[in-house]
């Protein structure tokens, strides 16, 4: 598929925060490609820059943060060159986002119908209130909210966490966007609700042809949900692969470490594997490969900057000591 046909193409994205100690890059060099209707995972430990990547794509990075390099093409249009007005038109219409904490994403003092109807009417003034209302009701029904007509009149505090997240998903889907960025929307929910929402989300995206970037730190979520996965570490994408390949034959030692630390991956009674050390702070990033201080395969050569390399079709990794040779 040619690049311009992709729903989203991010190249060389760099986002930094201007702190008292000078600028620090939370996202250093991120490349992402999402095809129409594709479901893509973005995986990494806490602090690896997943949320910052998502917010950068949405154009929602606030001061002191700033995108300093790269291009973000949505259906071929560069969002970094778009005017604030154009960005606002696209947000919520062609590209939507859902956040992690369902208790905080809905405005506590506005009724659900107010918050849903505005999402339609700010993009299309010609839609009447009644028609907008009906669309909202149907959207609530689609995400599995019982008696949606009455629930439209409710306030967020009258919903459980899981139900609130469904409402947020319904809002994101309202205008049938081309792509939704979901930033760990099920992390705060319990496991049964999580799997229900995952299945529903997958079905909705498949049915409507909406592409999805699912941000998570949980590889098991990615396994069932996504087509392709990007693994992030300390602001870099370190590996990209179709989901089965990634889980069966990881290339980057960091990906390997992540897979080994999944509890069900170990024989019962065995001590859990874990990656030694912690993610370095943004202002204390090691030179070269940012993972090398924690890597079992490191050599002096890892102190040089390492570029993303191709390891066969649809596979890339940022490593000179890969577990699988390309």
């Amino acid at each position, binding site marked *: 598929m040619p690049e311009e046909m992709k729903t989203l193409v991010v190249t060389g994205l760099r986002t930094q925060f201007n702190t008292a100690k000078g600028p620090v890059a939370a996202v250093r060099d991120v490349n992402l490609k999402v095809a129409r209707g594709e479901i893509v995972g973005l995986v990494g430990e806490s602090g690896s820059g997943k949320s910052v990547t998502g917010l950068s794509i*949405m154009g*929602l990075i606030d001061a002191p943060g700033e995108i300093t390099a790269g291009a973000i093409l949505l259906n071929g249009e560069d969002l970094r060159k778009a005017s604030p007005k154009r960005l*606002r*038109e*696209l*947000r*919520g*219409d062609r590209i*939507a*986002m859902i*956040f992690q*904490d369902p208790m*905080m*994403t*809905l*405005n*506590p*003092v*506005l*009724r659900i119908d107010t918050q849903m109807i*505005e*999402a339609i009417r*700010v*993009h299309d003034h010609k839609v009447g209130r009644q028609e907008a209302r009906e669309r909202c009701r149907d959207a609530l029904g689609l995400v599995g909210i019982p008696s949606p007509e009455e629930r439209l009149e409710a*306030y967020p*505090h009258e919903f459980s966490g899981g139900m609130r997240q469904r409402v*947020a998903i319904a*809002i*994101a889907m309202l205008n049938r966007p081309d792509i939704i960025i979901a930033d760990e929307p099920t992390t705060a929910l319990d496991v049964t609700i999580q799997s229900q929402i995952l299945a529903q989300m997958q079905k909705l995206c498949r049915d409507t042809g909406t592409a999805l970037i699912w941000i998570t730190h949980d590889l098991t979520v990615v396994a069932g949900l996504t087509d392709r996965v990007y693994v992030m570490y300390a602001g870099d994408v370190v590996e990209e692969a179709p989901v089965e390949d990634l889980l069966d034959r990881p290339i980057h030692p960091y990906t390997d470490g992540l897979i080994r630390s999944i509890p069900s991956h170990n024989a019962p009674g065995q001590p859990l594997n874990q990656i030694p050390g912690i993610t370095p702070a943004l202002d204390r990033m090691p030179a070269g490969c940012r993972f090398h201080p924690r890597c079992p395969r490191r050599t002096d050569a890892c102190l040089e900057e390492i570029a993303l390399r191709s390891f066969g079709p649809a596979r890339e990794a940022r490593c000179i000591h890969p577990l699988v040779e390309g």
Partner: protein
Amino acid sequence: MTAFLLRRLSQTVITLLVMSVLVFVGIYMVGNPIDILISASATPAERQQIITAMGLDLPVWQQYWIFLKNALAGDLGNSFVYNQPAIRLILSRMPATLELAFSAFVIALLIGIPLGLYAGLKPRAVGSRGVMVFSILGFSLPTFWIGLMMILVFSVYLGWLPASGRGQTVNVLGVPLSILTLDGLSHLVLPALNLALFKISLVIRLTRAGVIECMQMDYVRFARAKGVPEARIVLLHVLKNTLIPLITVIGLELGSLIAFAVVTETIFAWPGMGKLIIDAIGVLDRPLILAYLLMTVVMFTIINLIVDICYSLADPRVRLGEDSRS
């Protein structure tokens, strides 16, 4: 709701009782009004006659008992000095005080909320710093001094506005109001501004703090992700969340405006209750002092009730009678 109102009513009755006992005992201990009221040249016989007429020869508990019986029949006694029903004296002066306090209240909101909003949205702008300096001054400079300065500048030097009295009034439903005539309005401006100054500073600070807090919330980010224009985010999503806590504080401040009006009325010779009560305290005019304080309790109760109702209307999470704040 009924239970809530009944509880409020009983609380008010208890407050009124306790208050009247305290005032009775307090004035009894401070001194004998007879010494102040009767001229030194009066004969002992005249003196005795007046004491008996006022009922001051009875033991204090008996005096209180008589007061209570009359009060239940709606009679709070005659002023020692004016020899008129105390309640009528208070009521004749009350419109002036209420007009002053309400004007100050409205001014505080009309000036305080927009300035606070601006300072909260652009905390680093030069204008915002100016607003904050203004609010610090409003907080720390004494009201009476500012009042005198206002008279000096606007009445004495510039000669724009009158410095004392109510000006021409119009009767609305038997209540004289200054605000409806140009002359009355020009008399009202300076005292109302003077009384409002402290509250403007308070409203600015509360609004600013609320706006800064709300702008960081996830629901603002989610509204942006929906493509909601910034103006709607600020004026609907943020302002509503900011105003709810403001209602409680501001409502109670309305009560303190009525109390603080005493100072402003004295400076601007505004013919309200404040002047009356100051004089009454000077001559230990017990019925008048009592009537004033009891009226104040009733007024505070009504204001609190209105505040609670407004609060429960504004905040969907609060239902009257269920909360423990009453």
